[in-house]
């Protein structure tokens, strides 16, 4: 490229660079700033010290998030595999059917589960009409995990499906050619080559699950308070921005550590980089 156009491309990038600095980097700096100061603006570690009170909440959030992610993976993987084997017409229909629920408002989709799971909701109505004792479904940790799986399942299916679709079919044929039966091919070629899709699906489900607050509020009742709930409370009702910022700060760092570990894991496998 000549000098003139390279100068132009630099100028074209300038507004975005300024924007990114102002509204991506500076806000993260603000989180750090609030996390390490008190209401007078003086440096303090008190906010961070206070976080130890919420250790159990962090553990619970990560545990439930992980559980939801693994369940999503178990449901999504076979479905993505089935989809990848189908003809193009069926594939586009199924992709559309999977994406369609995501277009519904997230809050209402979650709220609708209340209708199903409530003490006098649809499931319990069905159970009691069959002559069984009603079950405690709503306001349990199970309901929260269900809500997470429900809301984020498409984020697991689609990346895995996309990677499987992109896999060169001649690799499968080569494995068959070398003496692999269906199971061998699945284990030695399909699974290892789908790792990048699994990794991106994993992060796309894990991050929103760990940090959610609406799902736990609606389906978990008072018994399941997650880290997202605590942060939300600090900013919306308790007005303790400094504690809220330090909680967000820790949450962010935890998640970036998780992502780094996941990425390392996929790099080691030498899979296709998306």
């Amino acid at each position, binding site marked *: 490229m000549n000098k003139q156009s390279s100068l132009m491309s630099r100028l074209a990038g300038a507004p975005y660079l300024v924007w990114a600095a102002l509204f991506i980097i500076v806000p993260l700096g603000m989180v750090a700033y609030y996390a390490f100061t008190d209401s007078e603006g003086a440096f303090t570690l008190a906010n961070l010290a206070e976080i130890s009170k919420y250790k159990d909440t962090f553990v619970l959030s990560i545990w439930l998030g992980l559980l939801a992610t693994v369940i999503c993976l178990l449901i999504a993987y076979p479905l993505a595999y089935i989809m990848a084997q189908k003809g193009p017409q069926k594939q586009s229909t199924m992709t559309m059917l999977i994406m369609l629920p995501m277009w519904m408002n997230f809050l209402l989709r979650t709220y609708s589960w209340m209708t199903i799971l409530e003490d006098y909701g649809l499931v319990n109505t069905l159970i009691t009409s069959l002559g069984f004792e009603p079950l405690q479904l709503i306001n349990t940790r199970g309901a929260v995990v269900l809500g997470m799986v429900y809301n984020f399942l498409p984020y697991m299916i689609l990346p895995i499906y996309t990677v499987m679709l992109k896999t*060169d079919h*001649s*690799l499968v*044929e*080569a*494995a*068959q*050619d*070398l*003496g*692999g*039966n269906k199971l*061998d091919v699945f284990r*030695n*070629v399909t699974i*290892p*080559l789908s*790792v990048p899709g699994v990794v991106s699906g994993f992060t796309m489900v894990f991050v929103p699950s760990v940090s959610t607050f609406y799902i736990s509020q609606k389906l978990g009742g008072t018994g399941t308070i997650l880290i997202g709930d605590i942060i939300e409370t600090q900013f919306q009702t308790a007005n303790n921005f400094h504690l809220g910022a330090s909680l967000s700060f820790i949450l962010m760092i935890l998640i970036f550590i998780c992502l780094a570990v996941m990425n390392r894991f996929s790099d080691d*496998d*030498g*899979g*296709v980089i998306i």
Partner: protein
Amino acid sequence: MSNHIIELKNVSVAFDGQQIIENMNLYIRDKEFITFLGPSGCGKTTTLRMIAGFQEPDSGEVIFDGKVINGVPPHKRQLNTIFQRYALFPHLNVYENIAFGLRLKKTPEKDIKEAVTEMLSLINLKGFERRNIASLSGGQQQRVAIARALVVKPRVLLLDEPLGALDLKLRKDMQVELKNIQQRLGITFIYVTHDQEEALSMSDTIVVMDSGVIQQIGTPTDIYNEPKNAFVADFIGESNIIEGVMRADFWVEMAGHRFKCLDKGFGVDENVDVVVRPEDVDVVPVEKSMISGIVTSITFKGVYYEIIVEIKGFKWMIQSTDYQAVGSTIGLNVEPDAIHIMKKSQYSGLYGDYSSFSEEFDELSDATVYEDEDE
């Protein structure tokens, strides 16, 4: 019969109602190097995939070593394939790629190591065991693909345009190397290509195909010297295909002259296609010549000049070591053994003269798009 390792009997394949292979019959001898040669879409790759087991014929039988193998999945067939773009597993290194087939057979680790090491030395890639596939050059990937297929000791190796992605010089080296490997291991190679030079220089037998039909089977010299029809003559090498009339056994008339030839058994005054290779035409003084014409163009090709001569409205190509001026009249002689007579076929008259070299050039005025795709 006993040494036929593969036979195809009355095999047909159609995709979406389009006939790809039409009632094909073919046998392949054990330990031979056989090549399926033809233009894109002629059905050669489909035939190969049928033998490998990736494509089932709609009708007819595929026979391997005397047994019908229709319906036998690829992993149970004793043959292996070199794929067009190699299909090396990107998540495995060189060693693991080659070991793949052996691991599936639960071969002991010690034997795997031995076999892989042997293969690496066969393909001259010792010391590449731990290398990532993506870090290899095209030629190296090609060798790994060969090793990966050969290590499981197939009786037949199928090669689907394996050298297509390599540059010209490397391609020539690999041709020699493949032929050496085939002779050393003494196994059957079935090779698919659209490159006639490749086919002529490597094969024991060439199967020329077009539109799903075998046009001719024979040794490279047979195919070159005695093409069965205008398609084969045009596809293999350069040739002047001239309309002629058999006046009697050993006498053919073309371009207004009666030539002596070596062919017989045609009806008297039967219309035929006559093939004369450009290198078999001699330039002689006009007064001593059988036919004469006007030079319309001359191109220097290094070893020879390529001269286009118009004789009675038909443009011949001849190759000569002597320069001729454009516009001059020259005399030409054709010896009897340089003339090959073919019966008329559906391909007669399709290829025209040397006004242009390619069909594509002829069609440019139609503004059609040439698509470079394979089957």
